[in-house]
């Protein structure tokens, strides 16, 4: 119970940080890091998948309400939540299948690989749905890759910050 309240508070904090601060960075006119996916990326591994998927949907939808983007973030977050086990299986292999992997003590290289693949996956879906125009695929790629670099950087920094604390 205590854990649930803690998660909800941190989700609200991430939404506010994302919408009130990070969305105003506009680096090179169009790049804003999407740090808010941190919660979905590091959601506890042992979870009720139905609750996880529902949570991700509502979480993405609240970002959408702030940014006036219909339900783009919701779609991307739901996909991220649903396909996350596949990434976990690919990257952590047997340790994930035996349910002994813990986010606290995975090494940096694996962690970086994990963050990058999930971020790229999420951003590609996000920008593809947002633009939704096959003649602008280059724009989608450009946006997804540049934003991903920024997001990955921020997630790594936040990891370091939380570790030292």
């Amino acid at each position: 119970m205590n854990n649930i309240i803690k998660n909800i508070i941190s989700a609200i904090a991430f939404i506010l940080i994302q919408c009130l601060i990070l969305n105003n960075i506009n680096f090179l006119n169009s790049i804003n890091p999407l740090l808010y996916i941190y919660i979905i990326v590091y959601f506890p591994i042992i979870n009720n998948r139905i609750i996880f998927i529902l949570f991700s949907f509502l979480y993405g939808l609240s970002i959408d309400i702030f940014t006036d983007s219909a339900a783009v973030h919701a779609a991307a977050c739901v996909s991220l939540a649903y396909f996350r086990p596949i990434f976990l299986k690919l990257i952590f292999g047997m340790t994930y299948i035996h349910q002994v992997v813990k986010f606290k003590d995975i090494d940096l290289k694996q962690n970086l690989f994990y963050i990058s693949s999930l971020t790229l996956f999420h951003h590609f879906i996000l920008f593809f749905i947002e633009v939704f125009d096959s003649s602008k695929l280059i724009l989608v790629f450009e946006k997804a890759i540049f934003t991903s670099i920024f997001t990955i950087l921020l997630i790594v920094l936040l990891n370091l910050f939380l570790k030292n604390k």
Partner: protein
Amino acid sequence: MQQIIYFFLRNKNFLLFLSLFLLSIFINFRSNSYTSSKIINSSNVVVGYLYNNLTSIKNYFNLIEENKKLIEENQFLRLRTINTKSDTISNSINYNITNGNIIKNSYNLTKNYITLDIGRNQGVEVDFGVISSNGVIGIVDKISSNYSRVISILNTNINLNAKLKTSNHFGTLSWNGENPLYVQLKDLPKQAVLKIGDTITTGGNSLIFPKGILIGSIKSYKLDNSQNYLELEVKLFNDMSNINHVYIIENTKINEIRNLDE
């Protein structure tokens, strides 16, 4: 029957994912056609309140520049009132103007929206035009009692009627989603005489904006695929990343004209 239930139970995760994903795609498509749901936009009470407070903090740091802009505009308007003879003003007023502040602005997406701190209580309605002292900003598309949402000119769904300042050749103004400094003017007849640097203004064909409101200057032009029309790259006069104070234009004759068209 038992097998069907068993199938649903076994695939419940996938079915949940699929239904939520399709739901969000559905919301996306609905929002492209002007009639999206009422809750999922930033003109609702909670989000409006948050953005409003944040903007009041941000505005504090912008006061000097904002004052300078207002003084410049005052000067310009004063010059115009001096130079206009009183008898050229027509008896009937076609347009009302109110003013407001931007509390949320985005320009880095392909479908950008702006939120204003005035709404139904201040007399704003859907389809009012929004301009700043430098030119067109967008069109009001959703209102709540105290906030309103504006489709920015930097939204791939917007289409505006625009013309050359020097002649009456008109075309359709839209945005390709790439650079927030430039918009595109399409379907301009190729016999129009123009040169780089010419001014583009709103055309009189729109019910929303009066004729002659500034938009931008021509950066480059070329013939389109059909070889009959020109395609123009227009540099906006407005720096869409730095706007705060806006004017909302109401066309008081809009219903009369619409009735005529029906």
